[in-house]
């Protein structure tokens, strides 16, 4: 299939998750909502169910969620609750609520209360001590709880062999997405910022086997093209999410391509694979243990600036001229790590801008001005 046709399919999925939910339900699949961050989706897949990513919405307005939370909360979490309350997610058979940030903690309670007569809520508390044996053990207990709750929804046990198979499917998908990120940079004339975001976003709303097959086809097509002679500039994106087509279009208008990303909704979610051998539950815990360089995770070497330096190095390695930080409004972890990210970027002589965003933004005039000005800075760095 031609590149354009494949990209269009991903774009359609990304633009209309609700249609995907309906499609899977009609095909007889049970669907489980998966909120951010780091939930072991493989367990949902292994149960023969469809994990459905919940990362808010660029099209909804917060209204019913106001009955539960004040205004000063991340719109992703608020809009997830909104969609659970307004019927958008009525077809779900359950929802997994991780609690790794201060908004998700109380939100797990609000969702459980609000959905008490509607939907099973599966609670997840990750350990911040990820690598020591006691952290692995706690993670194992948490993941076992998720497995048990999913088994209740499924109506039967989840076999270890099915989890191992899910790990293989997911590793393949992660590898394909990592390859796509590189190809998108090499072919940024074809895979523009909006297209790149749509392709990656679609992964949250498609069965990973189906998604990976299509993505590998796209990757093959892209690999066959000569590397483009890009006349514009390139940036690395960083933040929780940057999937708004209107906002990303501004990058295209200014000839800015995305070379790589440090985004929770994108690369942070597929950096680390799980072992395909041995006990699959342990493999999933080990996978979480190996996660690193993330604002949401505790860094045992906390007196060093590992995460900031990692991101600055990513900019250098990717061939980008600068970094754009999409600062999700009211996101404490991102905000707390900003001064040291800034420090590392400045030390590495990487220019950056910080764009304040939330999912209810409809006017991007201010962002457009900032991006336009930044484009000039990047141009001088080429």
């Amino acid at each position, binding site marked *: 299939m031609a590149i354009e046709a494949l990209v269009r399919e991903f774009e359609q999925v990304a633009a209309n998750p609700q249609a995907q939910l309906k499609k899977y339900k009609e095909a007889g699949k049970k669907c489980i909502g998966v909120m951010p961050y780091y939930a072991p989706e493989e367990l949902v897949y292994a149960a023969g169910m469809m994990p459905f990513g919940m990362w808010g919405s660029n099209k909804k307005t917060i209204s019913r969620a106001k009955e539960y939370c004040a205004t000063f909360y991340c719109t992703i979490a608020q809009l997830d609750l909104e969609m659970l309350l307004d019927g958008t997610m009525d077809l779900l058979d359950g929802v997994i609520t991780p609690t790794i940030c*201060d908004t998700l903690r109380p939100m797990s309670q609000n969702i459980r209360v609000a959905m008490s007569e509607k939907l099973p809520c599966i*609670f997840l508390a990750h350990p911040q001590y990820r690598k020591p044996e006691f952290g692995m053990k706690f993670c194992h207990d948490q993941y076992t709880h998720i497995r048990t709750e999913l088994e209740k929804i499924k109506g039967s046990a989840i076999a270890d062999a099915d989890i191992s198979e899910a790990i293989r499917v997911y590793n393949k998908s992660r590898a394909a997405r990592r390859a796509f990120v590189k190809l998108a940079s090499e072919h940024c004339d074809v895979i523009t910022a909006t297209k790149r975001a749509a392709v990656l976003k679609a992964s949250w709303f498609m069965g990973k086997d189906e998604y990976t097959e299509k993505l590998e086809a796209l990757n093959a097509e892209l690999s066959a093209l000569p590397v483009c002679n890009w006349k514009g500039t390139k940036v690395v994106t960083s933040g929780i999410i940057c999937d708004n087509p209107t906002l990303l279009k501004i990058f295209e208008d200014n000839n800015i391509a995305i070379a790589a990303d440090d985004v929770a909704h994108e690369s942070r979610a597929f950096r680390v694979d799980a072992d395909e051998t041995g006990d699959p539950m342990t493999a999933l815990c080990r996978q979480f243990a190996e996660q690193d360089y993330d604002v949401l995770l505790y860094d045992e070497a906390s007196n060093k600036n590992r995460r900031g330096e990692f991101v600055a190095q990513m900019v250098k390695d990717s061939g980008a001229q600068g970094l754009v930080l999409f600062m999700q409004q009211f996101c404490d972890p991102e905000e707390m790590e900003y001064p040291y990210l800034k420090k590392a970027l400045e030390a590495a002589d990487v220019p950056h801008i910080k764009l304040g965003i939330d999912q209810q933004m409809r006017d991007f005039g201010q962002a457009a001005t900032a991006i336009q000005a930044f484009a000039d800075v990047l141009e001088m760095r080429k």
Partner: protein
Amino acid sequence: MAEEKKAKKTVSPGVLALRKVVEDVYADARTAKAEGKLVGWSSSKFPCELAEAFDLNVMYPENQAAGIAANRDGEIMCQAAEDLGFDNDICGYARISLAYAAGKRASRKVDFETGEYVMDPNSGKPLKDENGNVVIDEATGKPKKDPKTMQPYTVLDDIHEIAALPEGREKELRLAAIKPYRQMQMPQPDFVLCCNNICNCMTKWYENIARMCNIPLIMIDIPYNNTVEVHDSNVAYVRAQFDAAIRQLEEITGKKFDEKKFEQACANANRTAQNWLKVCDYLQYKPAPMSGFDLFNHMADVVTARGKVEAAEAFELLAQDLEENIRTGTSTLPFPEKYRVMFEGIPCWPKLPNLFKPLKENGVNVTAVVYAPAFGFVYNGLDEMARAYYKAPNSVCIEQGVAWREGICVDNKVDGVLVHYNRSCKPWSGYMAEMQRRFTKDLGIPCAGFDGDQADPRNFNEAQYTTRVQGLVEAMDAGIAAKEAK
């Protein structure tokens, strides 16, 4: 008149003892630092028993930030953190603490020529004559200021900049100009102790301090709990961390863990907790023998000195004072108690007088605060200690949170609930709307919410607060009338 004023200022032996405990904790840390000993900074609900076992001097940034905010320096310190790149959406305590860790200090403006402080003409209280009347300045027609109450301008300084100055007059003057109250004179840390049972923000806050000061961080991770019970899995996870923390402390101090000292600290912490609860329980009396706002001040002791015998004894003394108040029918509440409310959340420290004013005007006493059960935890042995530290205000599920609050609402006979939607505290404020619904449904009492902040005065709207208190009073009137009609 003058006599009456004097009588008002009489402070009971218990309160004096509690003040001394906190003063001593700070003074001991300053001495320790001067002697080259290690000083740590700790989150408020880190297991202090572990540090006590190593005889370590530990300071508490949350308590410090509250004090800085109450001393009206919250805004300048928050602003300093924002200038370092920390967003103004971040917790006010964290911002104040991070600015302080980076070396920023609220200081008094100095005239380097004269060496005098430059007075702020907008500060100070009106001068009064011997009859208590305001003295008017004939030249301006406005009240004269009492020079004794006037304050210098507050400016921001930086200890690292001062340290880099050559020895001399400017260096001396700038060092001396840093505000003298204890929270602005807290020694810089040599290690940090973080327990994120309070919030996840704490994790990143302490990581930032560790980076700024290049010091070790000892972390106790308490993942959020979805059930009232703390499961064995969670206990095992925390127990193992206690062991790891002990090993880290052994490395930092070069000392072996002293089990006897640890047991003594546990005994002290339990005794402090019991006496704290005993003091809190005096609010069950109707009318109460104290103002609930007193508890906000006494919290400093529970936070900074829980593991010290002096804190346990000071609370015992306070309990005796309160017993005496009951016997004599007096109270520290400076007005007759007409209504009783639970105050939900951390107070707005920079605006305590403003918080108190409409309560006083309407005869409202705060007779319940969630800090009572939150810090009144008693345990026996390490497993129970792990369970106890698992239960902080923001680490418990909604059912536990509601049970704590409804328990004290009933025991302390409240007529309504005043809820602080605290801009600084996402985990705390995040399920308050649902809690409010439950309080009203389960207890039949009205609730009113207001927007504020524990440390940043810019996030408090006095007009809104006053209106909400007024609304709550009207609803309480209706509730009381309905009860009486029955």
